[in-house]
């Protein structure tokens, strides 16, 4: 017993925090979702009966997957580029990439409204150049949601992929070259397999954050771009705690299951390309 305490005491504060601030609320959530006021599954039945909830769930999943995929696709080459720079430049670039993370998502979403709106920078430029007669509808579209979410979450992806790349011993690339690999072969057979894991981790974080987004779709998207978190917020405002809890559980399960699938798939791909 004493040995057990000595081995694990460093973890206790963290475990305590998790218990109080995560496990207890989660159990509360589960309990709230099946009570009205006695045990009932009516909230889940309502989710299953009314098409709109599942439709919003699937769209949330789809938007999050696409944003995560695009973040990986766009973020990977940026991280690669940063990793090729001299040390000092690397620190500077990473610092620059961190700056937007210090601003709240709300402000960054507002900024997109200013950029994309009828009188926004883009429309003003298009009109000024005579490329269009009428302002183009950019704001309150699905495209705006994808764009804004990608821009807001990209730093997370870049930093995660970059830190995975800094772990790679660049002598491995030299070894590959002298053993007969052309530059792209060395990249494909050595660098990419070794950085893929970190990149997938980044995409998973982006995906999880996306699943919970609601300010950005509410501000720059149209009615059709509502996400599950918007519905939860709507129900909470109406004090429908139980139904909000049921939706939250749907969101949680969807997120966890998808993350597991992405991980599995990622491991499979990593092994395949090596």
């Amino acid at each position, binding site marked *: 017993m004493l040995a057990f305490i000595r081995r694990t005491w460093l973890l206790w504060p963290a475990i305590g925090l998790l218990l109080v601030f995560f496990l207890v609320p989660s159990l509360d959530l589960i309990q709230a979702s099946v009570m009205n006021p006695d045990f009932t599954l009516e909230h889940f039945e309502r989710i299953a009966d009314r098409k709109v909830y599942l439709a919003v769930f699937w769209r949330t999943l789809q938007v999050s997957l696409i944003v995560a995929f695009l973040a990986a696709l766009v973020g990977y080459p940026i991280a690669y580029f940063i990793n090729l720079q001299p040390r000092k430049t690397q620190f500077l670039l990473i610092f620059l990439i961190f700056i937007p993370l210090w601003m709240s998502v709300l402000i960054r979403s507002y900024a997109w409204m200013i950029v994309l709106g009828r009188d926004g920078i883009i429309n003003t430029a298009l009109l000024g150049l005579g490329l269009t007669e009428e302002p183009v509808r950019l704001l309150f579209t699905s495209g705006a949601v994808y764009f804004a979410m990608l821009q807001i979450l990209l730093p997370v992806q870049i930093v995660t992929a970059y830190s995975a790349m800094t772990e790679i*011993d660049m*002598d*491995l690339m*030299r*070894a*590959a*070259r*002298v*053993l*007969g*690999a*052309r*530059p792209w*072969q060395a990249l494909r*057979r*050595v660098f990419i*397999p*070794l950085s893929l894991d970190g990149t997938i981790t980044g995409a998973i974080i982006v995906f999880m954050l996306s699943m919970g987004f609601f300010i950005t779709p509410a501000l720059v998207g149209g009615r059709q771009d509502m996400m599950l978190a918007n519905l939860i917020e709507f129900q909470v405002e109406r004090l429908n705690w139980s139904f909000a809890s049921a939706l939250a559980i749907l969101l949680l399960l969807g997120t966890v299951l998808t993350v597991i699938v992405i991980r599995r798939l990622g491991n499979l791909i*990593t092994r395949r390309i*090596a």
Partner: protein
Amino acid sequence: MSGAAVSFRGVSKRYGPVDALADFDLEVKPGEFMTFLGPSGSGKTTALNVLAGFTHATAGEVMIDGRSVGGLPPEQRNVGMVFQSYSLFPHMNVFENVAFPLRLRGVAKAEVARRVGESLDMVRLADLGGRMPKELSGGQRQRVAFARAVVFEPPVLLMDEPLGALDLKLRQAMQLEIKRYHAQLGCTIVFVTHDQGEALALSDRIAVMGEGRIAQVDTPDRIYDYPKSRYVAEFIGKTNILTLEPGNAGAVRIVELGCDVPAQGALAEARMISVRPEKIERAAGRREGLIDFTARIDEVLFLGDLVHYSAVLPGGGALLFQEHRGPGATVLARGDTIELGFLLSDALPVSGREAAATAVGA
């Protein structure tokens, strides 16, 4: 497989104000075991990198088998290379690591399996093909790196301090292994080390380097017995550098010993001589032509069969000498005063800076 000739013709490499390599000239014969020996920062790695194609020379030409390779990227030079940190691919198992160069060359599957098997056999790791690099000991990783570097039968093999990360015992065992591989493969080996013992034990010839230049190229025994400069004499083994000045008619004076010797041959022009510690013995007036002097024992390093001494000369200089413990030999103690001597034929004139004892011999 047989080795290819390697030539460096006036190769220079500058990094800003630093001459990493300066006017580097060297001809390595086919199948030769050539070692670049020098302290850290003397340009050994730079020379290898220029040869492997990782670095472009500022001036000069590198040739393999008589053809200039300056314009070729590393993958077209067909040289094997073993890195100090082994650089095994961590996401591939041993078999895949060794198969890597063969697969890149489009070798058929069955042939890949056969040749990887042979290579792993040679380094005695035939059973470990399925292991991942992190599951291997340092010595085993070293062998895998070696198998991978030679599996495609490159005519030239480069090794940059390949044993630097191993402990002493393993290093000595691996030195024997490398000798065996070389005999078996017959390829030309360019080997880099800062360890003079390793260089002496392994090489056909040694290029002693200092500040980007070659100080001397020669066989191990000639490098040891006939160093041309004080730098080489002090880097290879230990030695005593004694200063000469004109003495009485027809003689030169050995300053530290305060004695005159006849100015014969090279001694007449030389300003320094090098005398190895093992060439100095207790005089006791036994031998003909012995240059003898008195010294006081200052330090004793007792190694059992061998004893190293540091002695103080009457003029204040220090002198190293060592003795094998022959029959009836006594061990001297600190503070003993003793007659020592050496043969003039064992004193080798060397060139180089006189002042500032830059003793690097370890």
